[in-house]
């Protein structure tokens, strides 16, 4: 672990306590690091635990969920041990976050300007006039040509892509060192997706932010991320650089995901698909959590869950094929 690691998540476990004493292990022992200025992608299907991982970092997991174990070291301080009140000075100021649904993520009864300014005033302790000026500047930065008018507009007056731009303006308003983007483009048109991702990338470079990009879109990963983690069943099953993931995928789940992508080079009748569904977090199979869907399943896969092992420097895989 180098000195300048920005975010160091160690053994994070976030459990949900369901009715009837059932426990959903939504995040079950996740370790990863993010360095300053780096884009790290967290990939997985719906229900793999990637969103809960990101919400855990912000400590925004609501009841009945709870961070059960682990450390989230941000700039050396453990967020897990902070009180709710202390967290309010980390959120928005040191870590910004944008969400999947721009249509519902902004408060419908306040103007865009109000929602940007409130963040600035809260964290930067500046005057209203100064916040107004800074908010207009931010809106221009994220691509609102008529920023002064946009300040007075309400979220419902903007399109989905524009709202996501406004969300980005809010998230970066206090120069956070880390931006968590939880499927920022899933709800948007394909043409708008690229604009939003390019904007995030531009902001990242401009402000030297690190980005934790949560997505299920491998195309987005290839384009924007440097490191990538593949999550399945609340655990990381493969962790490596983006080049490695695409050229040399190890885990059968990763291979399955890649085979399900259309490609210009290959001429196939039918795209690959991983059979079955992600199991619910309280009914994982015993043994490897992917065993029920894995084409290479062996007897021992059904007995015990494999450990995450290093197969080559900087490339970790959780699979018995590589032990």
């Amino acid at each position, binding site marked *: 672990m180098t000195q300048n690691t920005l975010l160091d998540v160690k053994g994070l476990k976030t459990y949900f306590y369901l009715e009837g004493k059932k426990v959903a292990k939504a995040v079950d022992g996740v370790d990863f690091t993010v360095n300053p200025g780096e884009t790290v992608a967290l990939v997985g299907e719906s229900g793999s635990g990637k969103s809960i991982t990101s919400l855990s970092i*912000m400590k*925004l997991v*609501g009841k009945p969920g709870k961070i059960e174990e682990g450390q989230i070291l941000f700039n050396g301080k453990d967020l897990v041990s902070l009180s*709710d*009140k202390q*967290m*309010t*000075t*980390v*959120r*928005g*100021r040191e870590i*910004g*976050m944008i*969400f999947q*649904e721009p249509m*519902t*993520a*902004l*408060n*419908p*009864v*306040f*103007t865009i300007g109000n929602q940007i300014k*409130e*963040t600035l005033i*809260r*964290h930067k302790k500046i005057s209203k006039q100064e916040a107004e000026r800074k908010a207009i500047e931010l809106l221009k930065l994220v691509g609102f040509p008529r920023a002064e008018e946009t300040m007075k507009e*309400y979220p*419902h007056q903007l399109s989905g892509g524009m709202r996501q731009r406004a*969300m980005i303006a*809010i998230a970066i308003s206090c120069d956070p060192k880390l931006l968590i983007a939880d499927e920022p483009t899933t709800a948007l048109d394909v043409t708008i997706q690229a604009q939003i991702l390019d904007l995030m990338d531009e902001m990242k470079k401009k402000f030297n932010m690190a980005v934790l990009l949560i997505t299920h879109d491998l195309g987005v990963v290839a384009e924007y991320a440097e490191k990538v983690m593949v999550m399945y069943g609340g655990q990381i099953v493969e962790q490596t650089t983006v080049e490695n993931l695409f050229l040399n995928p190890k885990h059968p789940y990763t291979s399955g995901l890649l085979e399900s992508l259309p490609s210009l080079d290959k001429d196939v009748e039918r795209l690959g698909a991983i059979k079955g569904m992600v199991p619910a977090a309280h009914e994982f199979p015993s043994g490897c959590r992917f065993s029920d869907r894995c084409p290479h399943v062996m007897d021992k896969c059904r007995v015990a869950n494999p450990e995450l092992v290093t197969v080559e420097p900087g490339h970790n895989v959780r699979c018995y094929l590589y032990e």
Partner: protein
Amino acid sequence: MIQYLIRRILVFIPMLFALTVIVFALMQAAPGDPFSQKMDPNIDRAVYEKQREALGLNDPIHEQYLRWVGNAIKGDFGDSLIYKGRTVADLIAERFSNTINLGIMTLLITIIVSIPIGIYSARHPYTPLDYGATTFGFLGLATPNFFFGLLAIYVLSIQLGWLPSHGTVSKPGIEGFELFIDKIRHLILPSLTLGLAGTASYMRYMRSEVLDVLGSDYIRTARAKGMTENTVLYKHTLRNALIPIITLLGFEVGILLGGAVITEGVFQFPGLGTLFITSIGNRDYPVIMAINLMLGFFVLLGNLLADIFYSIVDPRIRYD
């Protein structure tokens, strides 16, 4: 906004017109006349017909209607057929201030009690206090007005002697601040009774609205921006949670101003409700029609108020 208001008020006019037609038609359709059951059966038919003629009850229906509407526009609802020599407007005015006082007091109690409890319940769901509030909510909704009223009179007035049990003032001749306090004391029991069901249901509405809003995406965004819990609750949540409550309160204004027949009866409270019931018993047509018209008018007015408030708190509903 101004345009919307003007348009909204213009819609008022045809609705009022429809209201007068309905009120008038209902009265015409009702059997009997002011002399039913009051008249000596042996009286001469000719005398009876002369009386009807004098009151204009034998004129063609459209003439009667036009006469009534024409006068009503001028604020003249005619004379009461029963209270000799008193105009309808006079009778209503005398009762109306009492009804307004009762309505305001009831609304205040409803809002002051239900909204904070609703918020508390939503912030601490499934705690003993929340369960207590829920129990109170169901009891309040299930208890009939007259029963709660009698219970309140028995316990708070007769047994404990804390509050007066009926009327609006205890003795003639008091004035100034003393009169004000006396009136308030007389209002407490009736407004508690009248507001019971409303308080219970607004509490439940508030709880579910706040719970709903607290789980929404924009509240998560507000938290992710580092807003303090107080800002999240009192700025981001409350404004959104109040939108549907305000609509309901608009209707409530209409209902409360129309008077509360049963509650007023229990407390012998001289409001519009008791006047209404007596007039129906007496077949005092001009009074019944005037009160009916007023009730309808207040419901329309309540709706208008709800729409105006609605468009103030929710920017998505500004039609311009």
